[in-house]
């Protein structure tokens, strides 16, 4: 026989104004199973909570009902109080007689009657509450960071410095990402390589960081605290343990004319190569698509047609027959930092994007994009930092910079703002003027968006000190005119057309989500927005979390981001991961479904409807040990407690704790006590 205590709150006058709280307490006193009932001015106050604790001890109550405000308001408060009194916290429930009664009714009689019903209903529920323990899930204190750009590196370093192992995977041959391609960075103009390279090395040498380059995520299983990640190590053809990065193979390789991805096509590379001199790790990858030997193999030639790199390698590190291999890593948290790609306006455009044929990109050699200019301006670039135009290698005397190519243009491109272009175009203009003093830099912009510490000062400097001409307006057409590049634009401030005979044009093309991001998101069961950027859990309050617990997001894979933002996000994910790892076990409300194996027939209908894939099929064995059937099993770590499985279970063999059939049945029954 349960002994339940009912505590009716006045909430000052919020409840007692319309509900006769004494009457409620009185009525409940006589309710079967109620051992104690009283009313009090403020139940949530310390004396109020004390009242509950004392009552529990004095009347050794088996359950507690607080008739007060919404459980969303104070359930935790009172459960804590009950817990302190030595009663299991889940034996306490709240009857909402404020939001759902006193505040929405005027007639005192009606309100009081309703309040009594509500209290009774909850009393009936509590009669069937079970003492429960909060669920504890073990946490694997290792993190996976996907993407070795600045965001990924930062996140990995923060977590590793916090004393936890990190698995950092990068799909390219070297970490560094786009930042390693940049010349100098706004607003301070410090050399990108100079600030990044040390970080790359640090990450590489960090005892807590396990680095996989030339690798990709194959599959992800499990849940927060307990992920299993399958990683595909793409065939490198170079033994990473033997290679000492001497570069002899590169020198020996006869295929030297391959456009270098790192140089954005402005430089050349060999078939076996490290993407750039400062690559980390400094271990080459053999590009089988372009390698003579593999071309020969594809043709099915009997003997190998090349092998120079293998001959050249004194360490014998080169192996033409390596294949993709797979490794599994157990981690407790995942940080996604896959970054962005540049909107390639010249080539085929995906659904919904028209492209800019009229800008001549791809046809006019001296029309280049932002990354290409970065390479031109970079001391380690193909021109050793000299600004020379691709077509004839001469120094351009007039350079036009076009903002918002693709961005903020729903008609043809993408509707969002790529955020970094205003700043890097200003930087480009500045860098150009620093290198070509007698040159003319003209930038066409829509709006100058320089919101950021020192950003506006920076763009002003480009204009005022370095004399870059900023024209507010769009460019309608760019085309070749002899050895010039004609740019037709419109100056909306002066209201006149502008025609510029430029030597080179730099298009500030939009930032786009990386290829394959949707597939990755699927593997991680996180969602992406219409543009393929990963959705954060809450745009304001949970910016680096995703809607899948244990998966976090940093940098430009979430939205266009500049370096400081990416780094900040990365450190934020670091902090999130650390706090997740701060406990050995995760605590969760025990609102999870439990299967009755005696009556379950294993139809797995529950598995069909589970939004979290928490239901597994489990074999059951007879006494003699042979498998005699299968039943459903709900993984408490994954179950979030929606109870959909229970509603579809024909034989009623699933019970959702804290909302069991018995509890609900009793609530429904209680309602027939209406007078």
């Amino acid at each position, binding site marked *: 026989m349960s002994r339940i205590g009912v505590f009716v709150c006045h909430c000052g006058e919020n409840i007692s104004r319309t509900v006769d709280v004494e009457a409620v307490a009185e009525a409940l006193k006589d309710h079967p199973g109620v051992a104690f009932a009283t009313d009090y001015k403020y139940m949530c106050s310390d004396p109020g909570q004390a009242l509950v604790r004392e009552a529990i001890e004095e009347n050794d109550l088996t359950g507690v009902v607080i008739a007060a405000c919404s459980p969303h308001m104070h359930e935790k408060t009172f459960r804590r109080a009950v817990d302190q009194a030595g009663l299991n916290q889940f034996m306490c429930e709240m009857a909402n007689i404020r939001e759902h009664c006193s505040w929405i009714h005027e007639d005192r009689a009606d309100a009081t009657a309703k309040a009594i019903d509500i209290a009774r209903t909850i009393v009936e529920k509590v009669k069937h509450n079970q003492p429960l323990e909060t669920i504890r899930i073990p946490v694997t204190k290792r993190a996976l960071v996907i993407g070795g750009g600045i965001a990924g590196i930062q996140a990995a370093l923060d977590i590793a410095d916090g004393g936890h192992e990190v698995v950092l995977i990068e799909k390219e041959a070297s970490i560094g990402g786009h930042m390693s391609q940049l010349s100098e960075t706004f607003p301070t103009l410090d050399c990108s390589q100079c600030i990044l390279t040390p970080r790359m090395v640090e990450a590489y040498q960090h005892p807590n960081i396990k680095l996989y380059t030339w690798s990709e995520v194959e599959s992800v299983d499990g849940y927060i605290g307990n992920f299993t990640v399958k990683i595909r190590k793409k065939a490198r053809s170079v033994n990473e343990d033997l290679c000492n990065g001497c570069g002899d193979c590169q020198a020996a390789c006869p295929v030297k004319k391959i456009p270098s991805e790192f140089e954005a096509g402005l430089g050349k590379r060999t078939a076996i190569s490290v993407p750039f001199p400062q690559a980390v790790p400094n271990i080459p990858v053999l590009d089988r698509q372009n390698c003579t030997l593999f071309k020969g193999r594809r043709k099915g030639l009997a003997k190998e047609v090349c092998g120079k790199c293998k001959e050249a390698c004194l360490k014998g590190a080169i192996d033409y027959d390596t294949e993709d291999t797979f490794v599994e890593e157990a981690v407790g948290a995942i940080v996604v930092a896959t970054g962005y790609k540049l909107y390639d306006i010249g080539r085929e455009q995906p659904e919904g994007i028209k492209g800019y044929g009229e800008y001549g990109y791809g046809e006019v050699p001296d029309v280049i994009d932002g990354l290409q200019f970065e390479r031109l301006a970079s001391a380690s670039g193909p021109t050793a930092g000299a600004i020379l135009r691709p077509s004839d290698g001469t120094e351009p005397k007039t350079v036009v910079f076009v903002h918002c190519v693709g961005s903020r243009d729903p008609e043809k491109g993408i509707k969002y703002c790529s955020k970094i272009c205003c700043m890097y175009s200003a930087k480009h203009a500045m860098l150009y003027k620093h290198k070509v003093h007698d040159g003319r830099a003209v930038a066409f912009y829509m709006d100058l968006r320089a919101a950021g510490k020192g950003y506006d000062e920076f763009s002003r400097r480009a204009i005022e000190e370095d004399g870059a001409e900023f024209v507010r307006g769009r460019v309608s057409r760019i085309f070749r005119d002899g050895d010039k590049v004609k740019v037709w634009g419109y100056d909306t401030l002066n209201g006149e057309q502008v025609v510029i005979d430029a030597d080179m044009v730099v298009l500030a093309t939009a930032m786009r989500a990386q290829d394959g991001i949707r597939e990755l998101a699927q593997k991680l069961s996180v969602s992406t927005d219409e543009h393929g950027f990963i959705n954060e859990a809450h745009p304001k309050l949970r910016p680096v979390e995703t809607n899948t617990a244990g998966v976090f997001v940093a940098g430009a894979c979430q939205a266009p981001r500049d370096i400081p933002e990416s780094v900040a996000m990365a450190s934020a994910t670091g902090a999130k991961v650390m706090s997740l790892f701060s406990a050995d076990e995760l605590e969760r409300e025990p609102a999870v479904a439990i299967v009755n194996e005696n009556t379950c*027939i294993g*139809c797995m*209908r529950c598995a069909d409807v589970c939004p979290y894939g928490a239901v597994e*099929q489990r074999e059951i064995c007879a006494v003699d040990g042979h498998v005699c059937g299968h039943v459903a099993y709900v993984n408490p770590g994954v179950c979030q407690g929606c109870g959909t499985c229970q509603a579809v279970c*024909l*034989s*009623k063999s699933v019970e959702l704790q804290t909302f069991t*059939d018995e509890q609900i049945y*009793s609530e429904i029954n209680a309602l027939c006590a209406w007078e």
Partner: protein
Amino acid sequence: MSETATGAKTSGGGGGGGGGGEITPGVKELREIARELLEAGDVRVIIGWEDARRGARPVFVTDPAEADKLIFDARCVHNLVTYLNPRRDHVAELGKIGLVVKGCDVKAVAGLLREAQLGREDVVLIGVRCGGVLEENEMPAAVTLTPDNVAPRCYGCDNREPALVDHLVGEPQPEPPRPAQTIDERIAALEDKPLEERWAFWTEQFSKCVRCYACRQVCPLCVCERCVADKTRPQWIESSPHARGNLSWNITRALHLAGRCVGCGECERFCPVGIPLSLVNRKLQQIVAERYDYTVSDDPEQVAPIGDYRLDDEQEFIK
């Protein structure tokens, strides 16, 4: 029909001897296959129909010599798939089963496969091409189907060439005749009546229920070990046979079959008090067909409508 009818007559004569008429090639084929399966030991028992004095009835054939007992004609109304129901583990104990099935019955097998209650390898299915069955199986010999004696559910049968079976015997059969009143027509007639009359009709029907649960026991798809109706704590469905509990039971039975019922009509045929359950079952089929464009088939891969959803499902009834 006449062919099967005559075929049945002879087998009615017993062992295919007397009776005068000849056995249909279909039945001959059926017996051949059954015999081979038993002889080869591919199956331990063949479950089919045999001829009995008062009509066709289920038979378990374990001896190849007795394969000639097997018949098929319009009197073979029973859905033998009920013997595959996991609740009947005593049948499973006989060993691997060879089952004779009509097109409608096969759908129930698909249902069991769909719900992981049966392995395809656990059973050999011998399909019989069927031209419809009688509403009432208790006839000394099969007679030609007429609008008055045909089982209404056979009208518009959509599985006359079952795909799921291992063997398919008999020649293609003519369409079953249109019954005097189709089930859909009866439903339409009922729906033309005002709510009060419908309520009166059904509560009257359900109040007859004696809670023998024959409908449940015979249903090939009522697979639960412990039926919700037998569950206490809480007892959602009052067990004593009074109008209120009966209503809960019948609503629950219906909902549990939504999107699953294959319309074999056995529940109604077995109901000792004659509750027109096929009206409810058919109505359910209409609902899922209209709302979710779903018609139960004999494809085990088919995704059942309940337990599935589309983002743009109709919700005209929701505020």
